[in-house]
């Protein structure tokens, strides 16, 4: 099955954003999973030294994936901001996605969860390293 039609079958909606628009805001609750269809988005985290961009996602990238774990979820762990011109994102039918996910065995789910939670921790670690580098002041 080709990826395009597979994805569109799950797509509930499409949204467009202008450069700088906030698509997901860190700390808020949300249960949508998104895919970048056009343009690029930045993943940013709030830190002691200001807003840090820790990653840039291109066409085809998924974000908001933690919503897979259902509504009991904590707040969004990073912001996602439209980065490059007009950005078009697809919004997935989360309920269906969650149903698919929950049809998996408990073991497989815990394996997938380990990967996704690992990404969240890596994001935090990368942000912390950038903060630490900034606190040490300029290089001579």
């Amino acid at each position: 099955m080709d990826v395009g039609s597979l994805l569109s079958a799950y797509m509930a909606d499409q949204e467009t954003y202008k450069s700088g628009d906030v698509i997901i805001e860190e700390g808020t609750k949300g249960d949508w999973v998104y895919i970048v269809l056009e343009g690029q988005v930045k993943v940013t985290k709030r830190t002691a030294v200001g807003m840090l961009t820790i990653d840039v996602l291109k066409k085809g990238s998924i974000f908001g994936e933690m919503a897979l774990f259902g509504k009991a979820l904590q707040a969004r762990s990073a912001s996602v901001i439209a980065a490059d011109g007009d950005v078009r994102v697809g919004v997935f039918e989360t309920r269906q996605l969650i149903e698919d996910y929950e049809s998996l065995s408990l073991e497989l789910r815990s394996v997938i969860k380990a990967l996704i939670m690992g990404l969240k921790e890596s994001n935090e670690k990368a942000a912390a390293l950038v903060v630490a580098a900034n606190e040490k002041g300029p290089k001579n």
Partner: protein
Amino acid sequence: MTKNPSEAPPIVSLSYKKGDLIIKEGDYGVSIYKILDGEVSVYREAEGEEIPLATLGTGDIFGERAFLNRADKTRSTSVRAMEDTKVEVWHTARLSREYDEIPPIIKYVIDQVMSRSIRMNNLIVQLTTKQQKEKALREKEDPMASKRRFYRKKVDLSCRYRPVSATSKFNLDGRIKDISLDGLALKVMRRNTIDVSHETGDIFIINTVLPNKKDVELEAEVVSVQQSQMPDDLEVSMLITDISAGSKKSLGFFLMP
């Protein structure tokens, strides 16, 4: 051994001693591990250094990446037991069959998360190696540097200082040799210490005028006292314990690169 090893082989549990390597980066392997008890460090090696990526504890799973990554079945990281650790090892034949049949959309999400995760770990390795190099360089130039959080500026400022308990009329002379927002190095004459204690933990109030003509008053605690290159001088390393908002602002401006 079971007669039919492809059908859900028994879960094996293994014990590792503190310091043991459980997974080695670059090795082939698709087993998944669940920590029953203990703690492990996930790390990568770069330029001979171990770069820590994560610490995992009881209940956490590792080794999932080589299993989920269809393109690369080698271990992308090493995992070492940080204390005596007991793990459950999942042989993945059965999980693997289930994985082959999961909804393609879930697979797509996993693949995307995988590539973000690999990219983030590369970034962490890059940032850590860079910082380790800079730190090594700084320590070579200045052994105290790693203890400091802020940029320290080399200066030569005359100052007056007094023990926190003394009246403001009582003053000693010194020279500030470097200063940051959280500490300073003070050069004083050895004879200053005859009547006034300059021991670790002593607190002084220091007054100086910055090159930009701003008065600064601050309170600082002695961290260490060392012989200076000149026999009559001592070098006192101090941590700033109190500074008024105004003085802090002046100092902050002065320290801006």
